């Protein structure tokens, strides 16, 4: 027998909270604040610097919350690539990973070149390079390659070494910037007249802030590298979210304090300062920060050069790490050649991905103009963050019950929606800064789409989270749009229980039927063993077909999945089903669920009418009880009851319970929904009970009936988990056959249909 077992190397878990936070900080405090501050003051005025970083800090915090939630639930190398794969599937995830790799690599090239430029200038100032026979540009390129190779080697040595070296560099630059800020505050206290430098605060108006925010947003991109450490972090569910929040908070504070210090560093009327200090600083643009700091303290120029060296090297270290993990993840899933996923057995690092990243990084650093490519990297990062904010919404809506979260954001989905809007605006404004960036973006995306369609699509491995069709038989297409009813069948007994109700509803709606069996393959078993679990489902489908196939157009589908609820909701969306009918055993064992871990998510997320049946069997319903209180699903419950009640001798009793505070008029309710009632009004009676114990009253009344039809609660899930609603209490405790009805419609159904 062939031995299919393989020994695969894994990344080692060596990174604690401190080095991860420092890696995030290192990627953020790269060159953005040094180059961006002077430009911000030039474009928006003296208040522009601080306002830009404060507002960007808020947007960055929102996106950090999305990253924190996702990275705590999916702590794996790959970051945005993994999130897009879970949320949207392989195609989108490949594009996300493809952009992630390129953006980080190009940013790394920029930092290598920035380091080289400052070092060459410094050495030239000391007269050290006079014996070198090359031009300044060639010297810069050679030094950029040397520093890139050095940090590629550091990354090869392992995550621990990477983290330690990066942490030292980052700590140095952060302490220097904080020192500048403290000196600035000290100077302002000593000489309050310098606060006049902030007047006028925004001489060119508030709209200029959009330009400066877009330009400097790259200074907040560090959470991507933190997400990439998912495979190597110690206690990732706790440490990754913390590191993201700490790093965003620290850089925001640092940037604001440094912006303040830059403005108060220059005294009006001092030698060499012409005009207002803010205008004097701004006219130096990228060098404005340096010119101001050189006047703040002795040896300011030297210290600034030192800080830029620290900043560019730590950012280079972090971007190499991030880009390598992004390409490693693509190789691991066979989206790129599996060569990318090779791991050094000695160092436990992805050496092949590192080598390829290094090759692209050095090529870009030596060949391409840096500023326009850096702008392209910014747009790619904005696009990535935009995507991640959509992913966090989609994954929370679809997979919240399956993932183990280490953090969840408050006020979901307000913050990601605000971040999406803001990032779209900032990306658009970047057009004004670099047209080439908006050429590079579509070119890179199109090349990614090409690679996916001609290579990755046919080689990518199927992940545990995907749902696959095993067998499918389609009914002939009818004319026009037919009402479609989906019936998930678990086994023959379950099929017999729900077939009569399905028959009556299909008859009333003139519907076509889709019989579905989801094969739940346990996590421990390989997906290839799905056949072993599908026998009962096949028998159930055959049983249901015996009754339904002669009368209605009927299709059957068998799919395997890891999670039944997600599989059914996915099928409902895909088939654009109008109504879902399914059985429920009537018990719930899982903490936090009202009707069970399968039924709750299906009711909440299915964008169609849902009918849940409990103990229905093949009975005839002569007396049907419909408790009503005017809720959003009451009309649908009444409609279903009128379909199921016996036409000749059936009777519906509308039961209302009142404690005198909220008057509900059943007659008016029936008048408003007359078109939905398929039974003579003479056969509908009204009964009212006066008590505040609503659930008990319904349970007591239901004992004399053949069927209870309940409208599902209209409360969102967040309120449902807080306490049981009346329909859920009745549903669990009732011994009478019971049907729960939830109508499609409204904004929530629309969201679930499209997101």
């Amino acid at each position, binding site marked *: 027998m062939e031995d299919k077992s393989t020994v695969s190397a894994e990344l080692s878990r060596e990174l604690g909270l401190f080095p991860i936070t420092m890696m995030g900080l290192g990627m953020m405090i790269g060159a953005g604040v040094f180059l961006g501050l002077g430009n911000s003051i030039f474009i928006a005025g003296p208040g522009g610097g601080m306002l830009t970083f404060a507002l960007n800090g808020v947007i960055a915090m929102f996106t950090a919350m999305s990253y924190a939630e996702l990275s705590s639930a999916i702590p794996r190398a790959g970051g945005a690539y993994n999130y897009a794969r879970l949320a949207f599937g392989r195609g989108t995830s490949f594009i996300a990973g493809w952009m992630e790799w390129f953006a980080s690599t190009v940013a790394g090239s920029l930092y290598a070149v920035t380091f080289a430029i400052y070092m060459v200038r410094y050495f030239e100032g000391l007269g050290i390079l006079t014996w070198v026979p090359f031009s300044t540009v060639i010297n810069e390129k050679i030094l950029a390659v040397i520093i890139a190779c050095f940090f590629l080697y550091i990354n090869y040595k392992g995550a621990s070494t990477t983290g330690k070296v990066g942490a030292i560099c980052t700590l140095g630059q952060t302490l220097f910037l904080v020192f500048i800020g403290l000196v600035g505050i000290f100077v302002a206290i000593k000489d309050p007249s310098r606060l006049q430098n902030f007047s006028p605060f925004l001489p060119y108006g508030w709209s200029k802030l959009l330009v400066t925010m877009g330009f400097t947003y790259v200074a907040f991109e560090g959470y991507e590298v933190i997400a990439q450490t998912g495979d190597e972090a110690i206690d990732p569910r706790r440490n990754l979210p913390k590191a993201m929040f700490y790093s965003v908070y620290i850089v925001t504070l640092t940037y604001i304090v440094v912006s303040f210090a830059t403005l108060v560093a220059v005294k009006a009327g001092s030698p060499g300062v012409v005009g207002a200090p803010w205008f004097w600083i701004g006219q130096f643009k990228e060098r404005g920060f340096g010119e101001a700091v050189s006047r703040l303290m002795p040896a300011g120029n030297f210290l600034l050069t030192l800080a830029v060296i620290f900043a560019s090297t730590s950012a280079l270290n972090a971007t190499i790490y991030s880009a390598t993990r992004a390409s490693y993840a693509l190789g691991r899933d066979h989206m790129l050649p599996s060569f990318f996923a090779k791991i050094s057995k000695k160092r436990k690092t992805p050496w092949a991905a590192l080598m390829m990243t290094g090759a692209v990084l050095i090529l870009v650093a030596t060949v391409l103009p840096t500023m326009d490519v850096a702008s392209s990297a910014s747009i790619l990062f904005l696009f990535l963050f935009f995507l991640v904010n959509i992913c966090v919404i989609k994954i929370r809506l679809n997979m919240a019950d399956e*993932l183990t979260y280490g953090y969840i954001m408050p006020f979901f989905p307000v913050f990601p929606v605000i971040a999406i809007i803001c990032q779209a605006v900032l990306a658009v404004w970047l057009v004004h800064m670099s047209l080439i960036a908006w050429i590079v973006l579509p070119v890179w995306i199109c090349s990614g789409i090409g690679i996916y369609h001609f290579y990755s699509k046919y080689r990518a491995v199927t992940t545990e989270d995907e749902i696959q069709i095993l067998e499918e038989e389609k009914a002939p297409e009818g004319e026009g749009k037919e009402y479609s009813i989906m019936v998930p069948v678990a086994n023959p007994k379950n099929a017999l229980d729900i077939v009569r109700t399905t028959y009556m509803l299909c008859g009333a709606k003139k519907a076509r039927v889709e019989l579905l069996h989801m094969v739940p393959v346990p996590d421990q078993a390989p997906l290839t063993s799905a056949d072993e679990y599908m026998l009962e489902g096949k028998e159930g489908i055959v049983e249901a077909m015996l009754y339904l196939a002669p009368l209605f157009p009927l299709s059957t589908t068998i799919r395997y999945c890891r999670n039944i609820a997600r599989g059914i909701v996915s099928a409902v969306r895909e088939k654009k089903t109008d109504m879902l009918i399914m059985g429920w055993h009537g018990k719930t064992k899982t903490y936090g669920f009202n009707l069970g871990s399968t039924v709750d998510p299906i009711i909440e997320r299915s964008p169609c009418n849902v009918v849940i049946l409990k103990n229905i069997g093949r009975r005839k319903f002569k007396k049907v009880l419909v408790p009503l209180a005017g809720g959003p699903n009451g009309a649908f419950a009444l409609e279903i009851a009128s379909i199921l009640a016996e036409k000749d001798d059936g009777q519906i009793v509308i039961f209302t319970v009142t404690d005198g505070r909220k008057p509900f008029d059943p007659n008016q309710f029936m008048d408003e929904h007359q078109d939905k009632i398929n039974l003579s009004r003479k056969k509908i009676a009204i009964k009212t009970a006066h008590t505040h114990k609503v659930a008990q009253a319904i349970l007591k009344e239901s004992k004399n009936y053949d069927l209870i039809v309940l409208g599902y609660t209209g409360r969102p899930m967040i309120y449902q988990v807080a306490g049981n609603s009346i329909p859920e209490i009745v549903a669990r405790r009732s011994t009478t056959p019971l049907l729960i009805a939830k109508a499609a419609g409204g904004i929530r159904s629309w969201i679930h249909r499209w997101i």
Partner: protein
Amino acid sequence: MDADGIAGWIIIAAALGFITYLLIWSHSMIERIANKKLRSIREIMKNLHNGR
């Protein structure tokens, strides 16, 4: 100080206060989830509600 300046300083202070609040809230949420070994969104929400 002009009106833009007053508004600007208020916005900066508000932004700092807001992200400080989000940081503290998020930190306590991470610790709470970890200490109580909560897993799914439902468990976390139910626990949040019961803890009030």
